[in-house]
């Protein structure tokens, strides 16, 4: 889910008319004094991090003086929560709370509608309270066409024993929260606690707001960088991967780093799945054997070879993985040789030196496995390919075997440099560039690129491969980036074909120039 930080969520609440505490967001200690001037003393200092129970890990503090505030901000900006440094700290007025409630809007999958949840006791441990005292929790199912009506909210809140003016105030808040949730398409929007302060006003003391990933495109104003379900802020590699996905609508590509800071030999594997269910099962097969999953990656929905290539390059940018394991459901509807070519290009370019096991079961799997295994025999590490009749568990067993037997080269092999064409003939593709070195092509006997090009857009002119369509059409997608003119050419031609598929930011990330 695209999760917002507390202060970002609170801004949406304020916009909907819900009262929030005076606040300032600070990003360095120097900004603290000014923040305190705005919000007054005593103040609450809260690290902005996606975690519950912040109080118990020192991510929430109270300050009675500017010095205390500075100290707290300083300490929090040095915190690492779930492995990620805190970069923003919320400085807030300290509320004089007389009572706490819980209020939330969530999507109810069973009833297929939004649902309001109210609890007359709020604060930490709300799940346990709900379990122990169901009478203190009330629900209202919302008709998506009308939205939450005031009387529906009152009827729900009434059931928890709240009466009178308070009932009316809370119901009003619930309607506003629903409107904010609906407007920004929240998967969930929660205020815990929702408090009554001494003046009698209702104030949102905290806020957890997650926007539906699939709706983020309609809310550019929220400035959500990555619309993905992350338990942590995106890593540099996550961002590189997301840019690839954002700029290429063909098929799905999902990448997330699950672990960092591990060393070689600690049994972390690069994982390349296809489809959620099959990936989960394949990861289960690995974890059962004591392996750790370094990253989750999914290329599915009939992605072009170029996308699978980029996914593999990003997986291989994790320097300390011990192996590369790829497996989806095993019986894919998509034509699997595209994925095979994408993988081969990445493995060859990187001179892969960790063992590889890939299950490419599905349509045209025989061809896929032939490409994957036969075109990688000269690489430092073994590459094995499996089909739909080989269970994920067996593939995991093979991985284990390979890792036990394999001795990696003492020094990590260097990646291959990009080829330089002596007599280049080039054209653009959707996300890259195809180049034929006509010097080499002149000496090539097979001219296999023309035959293997999947969309058949190449022809021979004076014995040299050229586009049979306009460069505009090729750039618009008629060249499907199937990679045949590089992969098949290298094996069966004179190595004149090369497809350049840049990945923005990756070379820099790897310290390559």
């Amino acid at each position, binding site marked *: *889910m695209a*999760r917002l930080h507390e202060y970002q969520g609170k801004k949406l609440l304020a916009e909907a008319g819900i009262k929030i505490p005076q606040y300032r967001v600070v990003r360095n200690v120097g900004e603290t004094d000014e923040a305190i001037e705005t919000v007054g003393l005593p103040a609450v200092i809260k690290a902005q991090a996606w975690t*519950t129970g912040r109080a118990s890990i020192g991510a929430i503090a109270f300050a009675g003086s500017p010095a205390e505030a500075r100290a707290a901000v300083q300490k929090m900006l040095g915190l690492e929560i779930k492995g990620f440094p805190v970069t923003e700290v919320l400085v807030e007025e300290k509320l004089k709370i007389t009572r706490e409630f819980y209020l*939330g809007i*969530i*999507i*109810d*999958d*069973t009833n*297929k*509608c939004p*649902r309001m*949840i109210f609890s007359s006791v709020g604060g930490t441990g*709300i*799940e346990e309270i*709900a*379990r122990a005292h169901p009478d203190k*929790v009330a*629900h209202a199912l919302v*008709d*998506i*066409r009308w939205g939450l009506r005031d009387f529906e909210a009152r009827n729900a809140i009434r059931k928890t024993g709240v009466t009178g003016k308070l009932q009316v105030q809370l119901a009003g808040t619930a309607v506003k929260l629903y409107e904010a949730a*609906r407007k920004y*398409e929240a*998967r*969930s929007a*929660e205020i815990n606690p929702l408090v009554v302060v001494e003046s009698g006003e209702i104030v949102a003391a905290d806020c*957890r707001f*997650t926007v*539906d*990933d*699939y*709706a983020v495109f*309609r809310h550019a104003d929220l400035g959500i960088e990555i619309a993905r*379900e992350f*338990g942590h802020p995106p890593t540099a590699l996550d961002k590189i991967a997301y840019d690839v996905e954002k700029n290429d609508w063909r098929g799905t590509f999902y990448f997330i780093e*699950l672990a960092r800071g591990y060393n070689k030999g600690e049994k972390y594997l690069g994982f390349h799945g296809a*489809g*959620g*269910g*099959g990936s*989960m*099962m394949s*990861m*289960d097969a*690995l*974890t059962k054997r004591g392996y750790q*999953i370094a990253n989750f990656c999914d290329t*599915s929905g009939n992605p072009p070879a170029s996308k699978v290539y980029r996914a593999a390059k990003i997986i291989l940018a994790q320097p300390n993985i011990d192996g590369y394991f790829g497996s989806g*459901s*095993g*019986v*894919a*509807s*998509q034509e699997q040789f595209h994925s095979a070519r994408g993988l081969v290009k990445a493995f060859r370019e990187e001179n892969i030196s960790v063992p590889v096991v890939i299950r490419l079961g*599905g*349509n045209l799997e025989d061809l896929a496995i032939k490409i994957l295994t036969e075109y990688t025999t000269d690489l430092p590490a073994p590459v094995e390919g499996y089909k*739909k009749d080989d*269970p994920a*568990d067996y593939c995991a067993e093979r991985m284990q075997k390979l890792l036990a037997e394999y001795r990696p080269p003492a020094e990590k092999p260097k990646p291959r440099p990009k080829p330089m064409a002596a007599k280049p003939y080039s054209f653009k593709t959707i996300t890259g560039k195809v180049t034929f070195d006509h010097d080499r092509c002149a000496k090539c006997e097979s001219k296999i690129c023309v035959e293997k090009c999947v969309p058949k857009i190449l022809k021979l002119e004076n014995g040299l491969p050229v586009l049979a369509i306009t460069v505009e059409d090729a750039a618009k997608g008629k060249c499907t980036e199937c990679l045949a003119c590089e992969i098949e050419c290298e094996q069966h031609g004179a190595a004149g074909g090369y497809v350049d598929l840049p990945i923005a930011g990756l070379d820099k990330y790897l310290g390559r120039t």
Partner: protein
Amino acid sequence: MDILRTRKLMSILIDQTKKVIVQGITGREGMARAKLMIEYGTTVVAGCTPGKGGETVLGVPVFDTLEEAVETIGQVDISTIFVPAPLVKDAAIEALSAGIKLLVIVPDRVPIYDVLEIAAVAKEMGAEFVGPNTLGLLSPGKAVLGMIGGSAASARNWFLPGNCGVTSRSGGITSSIAYYLSRAGVGLSSIVHVGGDAVVGLPHPEIIKKYEADPETKAVVMFGEIGGSQEETVADLIESGAVTKPIIAYIGGRGAKSGTRFSHAGAIIEGGRGTYEGKVERLKTAGAHVVENFGDIPAVTKKVLASLSGKM
């Protein structure tokens, strides 16, 4: 007699007698999947793409609107939707307004509030939908909706007809379970990918109720996943006696890290539901055959089916 015959041929949701329209037939996906459906035996009667009315795709007439399609060729039973995700809501409501009672919504990344709106209209119209984010469904030897199998030749090769129903929350796994069952000699009545999203039109419990009512189906294999409460609801159905046919269940995601839950509210309404252990426990207690190793599904299913015929 004819009625009896049709009933006998009827499988859940789809067979070769149902008239199907393809929304988005002129697009890359729509065209490729229409080809699969037609070649496999589905009765595709029309396509619909705004602005492309009058064209013919794969021998099928294309209309600008569904209303026009239905006026011209008569009532259609099913619409399969292959339009970009942001346009799905309008396409689906257009189909429902044209009186179509079953939609198969293939695209993924459909915004969840759009799905809720579709669900509200469908309920009002007395209609149902599979998906979104579904590979579709297939009844071996009869018809396919969506993209299961990829090509008609593979679909024929991989999935054999018989008496076992399949329902799955994962697209790829739908095909792989169906393939492994077929290869082990267990034929299939229908296979359904309910869709990978949090809110889907016909989740496991609804599909299993249909299998319960289907005379061709003797047992059901269910691929569940962590999260949500579809599998627990199936357990409820078994316990209440609403489902009597044997259920063979596998739950994926045992190794997934906990803590993926994104809100307190989710925990409150699920009340302990949603976890791997919770789902397995509930299903076992209710009497489902829970399989721990994916590879054991065919053998266990065979045994369950054999014990049934033994009883009969």
